[in-house]
């Protein structure tokens, strides 16, 4: 294994993050504060507690997931798309590095950035709501699995994209709606039976449910099912990336 290649990519990508640290952190923190003000203070006060959890606290895992999914996808997709766009991808393709080493570098950096942002949002939320984390180990586990899986998805999008518009379209048109409809701000059990059934087709519901379980010990679906869903998604992304490097799709002629 050429771990030095992985480390070089990881450091290079993290340097990009730290160059723009304030923009990287300010935007998600401001959005989260706005969500707390609107949903927590303004509307949340009129919404009764969900299964014993105050509404302001109930939305914290969903809010973190919303940002984490967007950040994972956009960090990883930009990370690999940018070298394609400016032409420096030639260096990756001529390096004595396998796809595993390259992917770990990019996806590791994208996931790290998303996790750092998640921790900042979590810290911010302590200022607004009374929060206890029931299963911190599982919380960290879900966070890592989710950021890695969606960074892998982002990596695939970055390789697929041929323009900045295409780079934006999946996070905007797919990820955000799935998070909103995946129970970020409500429990699936609050929906009428038909729509609850529809909601269960949304893969993000399983992520949010599992993550929320790690906070409050309550879930829309059994936590094992959530874990399995993340595992399947992870395996699917790894398979697609393996195929991409094997065939050189959109990379090699």
């Amino acid at each position, binding site marked *: 294994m050429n771990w*030095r290649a992985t480390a*070089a990519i990881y*450091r290079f990508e993290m340097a990009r993050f730290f160059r723009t640290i304030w923009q990287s952190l300010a935007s998600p923190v401001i959005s989260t504060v706005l969500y707390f003000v609107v949903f927590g203070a303004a509307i949340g006060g009129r919404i009764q507690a969900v299964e014993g959890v105050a509404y302001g606290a109930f939305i914290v895992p969903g809010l973190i997931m919303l940002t984490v999914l967007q950040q994972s996808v956009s960090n990883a997709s930009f990370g690999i798309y940018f070298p394609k766009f400016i032409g420096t991808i030639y*260096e*990756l393709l001529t390096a*004595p590095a396998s796809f595993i080493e390259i992917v770990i570098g990019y996806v590791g950096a994208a996931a790290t950035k998303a996790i750092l942002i998640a921790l900042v949002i979590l810290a911010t939320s302590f200022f607004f709501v009374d929060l206890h984390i029931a299963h911190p180990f599982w919380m960290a586990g879900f966070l890592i699995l989710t950021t890695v899986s969606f960074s892998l998805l982002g990596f695939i999008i970055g390789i697929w994209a041929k323009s900045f518009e295409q780079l934006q379209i999946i996070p905007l048109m797919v990820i955000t709606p799935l998070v909103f409809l995946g129970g970020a701000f409500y429990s699936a059990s609050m929906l009428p039976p038909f729509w609850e059934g529809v909601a269960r087709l949304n893969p993000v519901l399983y992520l949010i449910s599992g993550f929320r379980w790690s906070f409050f010990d309550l879930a829309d679906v059994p936590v094992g099912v959530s874990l399995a869903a993340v595992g399947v998604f992870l395996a699917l992304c790894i398979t697609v990336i393996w195929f991409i490097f094997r065939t050189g799709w959109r990379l*090699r*002629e």
Partner: protein
Amino acid sequence: MAAIIEVKDLSKTYATGTSALSDVTLDIREGEILALLGPNGAGKTTLISIVCGLVTPTGGTVRVGGHDIRSEYRAARTLIGLVPQEISIEPFETVMNTVRFSRGLFGKPADDAYLEKMLRDLTLWDKRDARNTELSGGMKRRVLIAKALAHEPRVLFLDEPTAGVDVNLRREMWQVVRELRENGVTIILTTHYLAEAEEMADRVGVIDKGKLLLVEDKARLLNEFGRKRLTVELSEALAELPDVLRRHEVTLSDDGLRVSYDYDTRAERTGIARILADFAASGIAVRDLSTEQSSLEEVFLRLVEDNA
């Protein structure tokens, strides 16, 4: 000299059906500068892209330092540095971090002392903390070379290194390439500037329509394919050539002040001695004379025309 790169029966047909290379066989010797000449679209870039791993061949094999570029790609690629045609560098990173990244990517442990020496050699050391976007065009090209050299490769590919650069910068690049060769790096450069090949190369390969037409020592190529022109400048204008000179294939310039004669350097008898003797015999006063070697450009055009 031993071959550091062995290319055998290499072919590439793109998905569109375009055949970019067909059955190219070539040995590149360690320590030489090989110029690959050819018109646009001849297959030069495809050839080096295959060796470097950017393009997958449809047939044939390539070995670098004895390692197959596909089954032993790690060992093969560690030996290679590529300077691409386009200036492609991360705009917002510093020069030093850019080369550190390249070194790490190729699996070499950090060695800032080596990188310092390299950047000094390329006169980039003063700019080590500047962002790439702040550099001039010439400096960016040197950063590309620095990136390619950061992992201490034994072979350096330069794809059209001086395409679109001004004369001063071109000379500067040539100087850099010469110094690299002195340090033992094997250099393969593609170019369509014949002057560049003539100035730089030890050997010249001519590619056209995906075929390697020849690979030859530059001097021998010029000698074998080259013709020379003898020009005799006269003190007084001639209205026409005297009979004694007409038996030679000489031409008189319109102003009557120059007589020229083209001859084959390979011929056993070039005819020069007899022409000069006839000038003396005819009493024509000669002011000066010169000979001129035909350029690589003429050699190249002749080869490509023959391949048409």
